[in-house]
């Protein structure tokens, strides 16, 4: 009996020690972001915040393939695991309407100089519904879809002469999609070299981010943002032409191109398989690093995504910083956001490799000359556009991903796929009550 009492006493004491919170515990802020270079830069930058405030910052990097699932599962479970979430622009609708993000409208208007931030970035990463003036985030990393190309090929005299003879104009980074196809065709020399690596993947938002900018540049659109009517927009003749064009690039891409998203196009480029590759600017620091790209780090140039016959539009990338509604450290999180948006911090953010939304910093000579690709990034800014950011974005996205991928692999014609997407999108909007 004595032994039993002794056992229970030890057990109770152990539980007490484990359960009692440490009285001198340091304040801690947990940020969730995807696993990539900008997250490493932010981790580095956050050390300054810790030095200034004494608040520890734990940046949880989640692999891209699980990023959305992990964050959303935490939200659905109302978990206080994350204080700040740096999420995709498309998430705004779902997470604001669903009550997962803190409404920051009043706080931002009182504490942040909104005019110092690029309006496009504020609209894409912070505002929902668009044009409402209601803010749920602050832009953290503003990214864009761009292209990289092999300067050793583009600048070779024999290549230049042969190109001019065949196409009648100088070989240079393409300004239009028509030029992009010519150059892609010119450099297609299978099995060792192909012209271009576009995004065709069915994974997450791969082909959508690659194709939508072509669609917009050909005069197409997803639908009417006021009425949410889709039929006649996404399946218009312009979009059919755009999709047929995008599919035509497959002939000048490596055989496994239907599986390409940002990681695969980057790998294909680094392996010397392609003359040009599509990718997010945020990944370009690795391309100019001799460690990560030993063969072509000094033979790489960058250009802005080309224009189409009816305009110029570029897919926006990057993420905004939101505060989780389930966080117990919302005030500290706001303190961090306010600190992050200060001009000197934004300057350091840009210096580390982050793509700042701060207009003045973005246009400064220091930023423009900091890397070989910053000029192309800044030049892309005026053309940035985004996918639907409504709460139903995932269903809309899935219809696009499947439909467009089916066109690329030859399972459906462009018209068939686009009619299907239009029908599905209208059914989704109808179901969600947008037409009531």
């Amino acid at each position, binding site marked *: 009996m004595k032994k039993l009492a002794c056992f229970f006493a030890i057990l109770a004491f152990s539980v007490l020690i484990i359960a009692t919170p440490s009285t001198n515990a340091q304040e801690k802020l947990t940020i969730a972001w995807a696993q990539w270079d900008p997250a490493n830069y932010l981790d580095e930058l956050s050390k300054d915040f810790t030095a200034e405030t004494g608040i520890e910052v734990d940046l949880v990097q989640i692999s891209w393939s699980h990023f959305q699932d992990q964050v959303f599962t935490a939200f659905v479970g109302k978990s206080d695991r994350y204080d700040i979430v740096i999420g995709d622009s498309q998430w705004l609708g*779902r997470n604001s309407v669903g009550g997962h993000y803190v409404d920051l409208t009043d706080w931002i208007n009182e504490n942040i100089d909104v005019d110092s931030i690029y309006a496009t970035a504020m609209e894409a990463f912070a505002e929902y519904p668009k044009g409402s003036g209601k803010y749920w985030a602050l832009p953290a990393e503003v990214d864009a879809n761009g292209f990289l190309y092999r300067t050793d090929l583009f600048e070779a005299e024999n290549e230049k002469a042969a190109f001019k003879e065949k196409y009648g104009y100088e070989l240079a980074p393409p300004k239009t999609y028509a030029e992009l196809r010519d150059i892609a065709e010119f450099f297609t020399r299978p099995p060792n070299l192909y012209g271009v690596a576009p995004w065709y993947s069915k994974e997450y938002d791969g082909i959508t981010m690659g194709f939508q900018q072509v669609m917009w540049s050909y005069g197409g659109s997803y639908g009417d943002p006021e009425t949410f009517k889709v039929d006649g927009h996404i399946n218009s003749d312009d979009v059919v032409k755009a999709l047929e064009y995008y599919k035509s690039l497959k002939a000048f891409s490596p055989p496994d191109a239907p599986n390409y998203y940002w990681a695969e196009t980057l790998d294909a480029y680094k392996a010397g398989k392609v003359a040009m590759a599509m990718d997010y600017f945020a990944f370009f620091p690795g391309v100019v690093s001799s460690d990560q790209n030993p063969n072509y780090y000094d033979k790489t140039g960058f250009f802005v995504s080309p224009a189409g016959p009816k305009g110029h539009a570029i897919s926006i990338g990057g993420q905004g910083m939101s505060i989780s509604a389930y966080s117990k450290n919302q005030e500290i999180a706001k303190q961090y956001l306010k600190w992050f948006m200060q001009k000197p911090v934004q300057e350091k953010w840009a210096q580390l490799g982050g793509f700042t939304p701060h207009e003045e910093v973005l246009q400064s000579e220091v930023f423009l000359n900091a890397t070989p690709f910053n000029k192309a990034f800044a030049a892309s800014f005026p053309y940035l556009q985004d996918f639907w950011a409504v709460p139903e974005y995932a269903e809309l996205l899935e219809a696009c991903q499947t439909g467009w991928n089916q066109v690329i692999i030859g399972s459906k014609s462009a018209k068939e796929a686009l009619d299907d997407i239009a029908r599905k999108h209208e059914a989704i909007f109808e179901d969600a009550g947008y037409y009531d």
Partner: protein
Amino acid sequence: MRSARFSRGFSDYQIKMAFIMPTMILLILMNIFPLLWSLYLSFHRYKASMPNRPAKFIGVQNYARLLTDPEIWGYFQTTAYFVVLAVITQFIIGFGLALLLNREFRYKGLVTTLILLPMMLSPVVVGLFWRFIFASDASGLVNYLLGPLFGGPIGWTTDPKIAMLAVVIVDTWMWSPFMMLISLAGLSAIPKYLYEAADVDRASRWFKFRWITLPLVSPLLLIALLFRTMDAFKMFDIVYVLTREGGPGIATETVSMNLYKLAFRNYNTGKACAMAYLLLIIIVALSNIYVKHLNKVRGEA
């Protein structure tokens, strides 16, 4: 009085309950409650991502929509095609290997262990390395070897006509050892004297196989087939990794893959629950067919 009762200890009933209750509570919490809750949700319009919007009762609308959606039937067809192809191939290879291993030879233990290895790997790991093996250009091992014979690389994961074959090959590589293991257990349990008696009667190899081996091993084979069919019907991991979420297009999009998207991408929780129940009904129905056949075979044996 109290100490006297304590010293007498617990009654048999109390001890039984003390042993059973933890399991019962776990079972109710982890299995029964989610099952009933998901059944309840399947009759509602509900999105788990929108906790501020209450579930709205819509009767059998989720089921009706699913059953009248041709795309959903397409996913069921894809799944059935995969199940038939994969399970039959695994059965043939697994049983064949078991017949070969059902004899004494040097290093039998080592060979058996090596054959069993794929089964012990994580499906995600298997999917990932087969993704590299099947790469659609010469960097993939299979295309490096077979490409010259077929006049160029084969689009294992990019050609909609071939992608399912790639999934079947990977699943077969992984799960044939399971078939082999169960078959081997059945084969080694057959009494040797039956074969000796057949030898005395100068029975042919085929006769011995047809009338001794097959009838005695078939109950275990049916159990293996039952497990594999149920598991194959739920195919998710390999498709998610190898063919990138059921691609190309929807060529390898199984019901489970679509269910995952419905539940965890779109957070269409009500509809996803209804779909999960449809899947459950099909699997239970298939299992019943197997079990009935199994009982029949046992009766004959």
